[in-house]
């Protein structure tokens, strides 16, 4: 599904990402862990063509992503608040995003219905603008919008931070369901090793821009990761 080859990214001469080869299969749930500055967000931004690689390329369905539009119709993503339009209400934002993916109003409200538990009554049906929402509710808005277009590939950066415990559990349930029912390919980064091992079948550890571990999740994965990160 996603193929990365010889990908490097440098800022002011220092290499922040260097991945010779990485393949992500259709339907795979791919977890990305690493300390601050390991290059997780950089990798996601490269996949989403938000920054330019110094060398190498990312292809999705054998098509390079750089400077193209085709992949946008089936990739859903939420990295940070720059993906939100802060002067809209969540409802307006969902309507906007939904229309971009050719969803009818009925589709959109049916979709949001499924999220009502996750939203906990604080996101939709409110007159509040997105910029007036709490960080957690902003995050929920962004995640839901990323899923709105029925993406074949879903990319989320730190989806669990800023969420309350119940919402974290609900989000995990939603993600697991998507894997089972829609076979969505997922790329999820997190600081929290627990969450990643619960949601992802494959876990990759980044350190200083390099892939240092690439593990298929098993019962021992959490221990292995914990011992890796232990100082």
């Amino acid at each position, binding site marked *: 599904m996603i193929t990365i080859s010889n990908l490097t990214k440098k800022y002011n001469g220092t290499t922040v990402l260097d991945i010779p080869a990485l393949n992500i299969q259709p339907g795979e749930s791919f977890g990305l862990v690493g300390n601050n500055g390991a290059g997780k967000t950089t990798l996601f931004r490269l996949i*989403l*063509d*938000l*920054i*330019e690689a110094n060398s190498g390329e990312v292809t999705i369905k054998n098509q390079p992503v750089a*400077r193209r*539009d085709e992949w*946008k*119709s089936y*990739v859903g*993503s939420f*990295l*940070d608040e*720059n*993906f*939100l*339009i*802060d*002067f*809209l*209400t969540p409802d*307006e934002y969902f*309507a*906007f*995003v939904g*229309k*971009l*993916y*050719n969803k009818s109003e009925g589709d959109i409200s049916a979709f949001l219905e499924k999220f009502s538990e996750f939203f906990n009554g604080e996101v939709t049906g409110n*007159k509040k*603008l997105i*910029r007036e929402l709490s960080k957690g509710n902003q995050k929920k808005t962004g995640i839901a919008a990323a899923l709105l*277009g029925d993406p074949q590939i879903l990319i989320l950066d730190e989806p669990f931070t800023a969420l309350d415990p119940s919402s974290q559990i609900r989000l995990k349930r939603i993600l697991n369901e998507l894997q089972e029912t829609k076979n969505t390919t997922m790329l999820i980064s997190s600081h929290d090793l627990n969450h990643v091992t619960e949601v992802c079948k494959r876990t990759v550890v980044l350190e200083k821009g390099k892939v240092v571990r690439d593990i298929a999740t098993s019962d021992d994965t959490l221990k292995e990761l914990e011992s890796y990160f232990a100082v």
Partner: protein
Amino acid sequence: MLIADLLKQEFRKGFRSQAFYRGLAVKLFMGFMTLYFAAIFITIGFSLGKILEEVHDTRTPLELINGASVYIILAALTIRFFMQSLNTLNLQAYQSLPVKRSTLVNFILLKPLFSIGNYLTLLVVIPFAVRSVSAWHSGWVALQFVVVCILIIWMDIWLASYLKRRFGSDLRAFVVILLILAGVAALEYFKVFSVFGFSMKIFGFVMMNPLGLVVALLVSGMAYGLNLMFFSKNYYPEKFNEKLSRGENKVTGGFSFLEKYGTIGELIQLQIRLIFRHKRTKSLIYMSAVFMLYGLLFYTNEMYSGSPAWLIFCGLIVTGMASLTYGQWVISWESNYFDAILTKNIPAKTYIKVNYFILIAFNVISFLLSTPYLLMGTKFFFLHVAMFLFNTGINAFLLIFTATFNNKRIDLSARSMFNYQGTTYKSFLIILPVMFFPMLITFILANFLSFNMILLVLGLLGLSGVVSIPYQMKLCTQQFVRRKYALAEGFRESE
């Protein structure tokens, strides 16, 4: 004293903000403009006495100024009401500290008095007082005149911020104020009641009688009191910063018909919402509406209406102010959610098309609104047609193409009229040629062509641009795709 500490912190905030270290070129340009206007003001101040002496034989210049005072104050209040940003304070940081509420309120109200920009009028007032008032009356009156002017400035500041806090800054207030001004002017014009004479008496007392000083003090004290009252009624500190954000959801509901037009319609609706939900973009539209009246000034004045280059300039402003000012920061307006633009299902081509559509829509609306100038002569109508074509065919392209170089983030939620975020030397590089290029062409062509022929040339240039819009869009799309990484990176850097 606490207020002094708070003021010091505000100064630091100014000096340490990123905006302060904005490009040298911008600073130089701003500095140059400031000097330029200061020079103009001082010159006006020195010559005002002479000018007024010629206006009327029996009244002294100061008396004439007194008569006009009501108008001047009302006008200043109106301008302030729309331009002055409410003074706010990062409250959260102070709320938890043991600072008294009244200290905070006093600080918010006193802060604007320490901003030099508010005293620009004095550049006119002081030379006038020194040169004319002291000669006609006495040095004492001149001094009192200056002091009262300062008090009036204070009163204006406080009254404007009170009105703003009380009523917000919605369109209705704009209309009401215009009506009041028109009403006062009408009373004067039809000789029902001479506001001028009334004002002359009142301000004659305030400016010349020592007791008048007390009156001025009392009145500006009352304006201050009004604010205090407002704050005591609206106890909770959120109110300090509120008001502006209210009542903005209504305006944009009427555009839902755009939803029928798929992605393009959605994106257009989004930009309309952007415009009407932010102070900066809204005031930009109001200002453009005001600039549409520029023609009344230029077309009736011999000096300008006789000069083809000035006429062209004015035509450009009347039919294009909105698209020129909005277009100057097109793309940058959306810097807050630019990553969404790049990753959601929005083809680059569509995105460019939308921006074209918006600018062209501005041009069409401005042109339609300018048609009443037909009453002043067909000459102006043709001028507007030509400039409309020029704006649409050529300037829209220049603005959108060059917008891809402006990668400074604009954070629209920071509400301020004089918010120059996103202004770099690049914006001047763009806007100056766009404004003055047609003037330059005209200036040259005027040597061997009649005005109508010049209009024809400019109109045809514009028309050929309009015809080639599909091709222009292709160029802009390529350019946008080439520059999108630099844009996205710049927009992610917040000030």
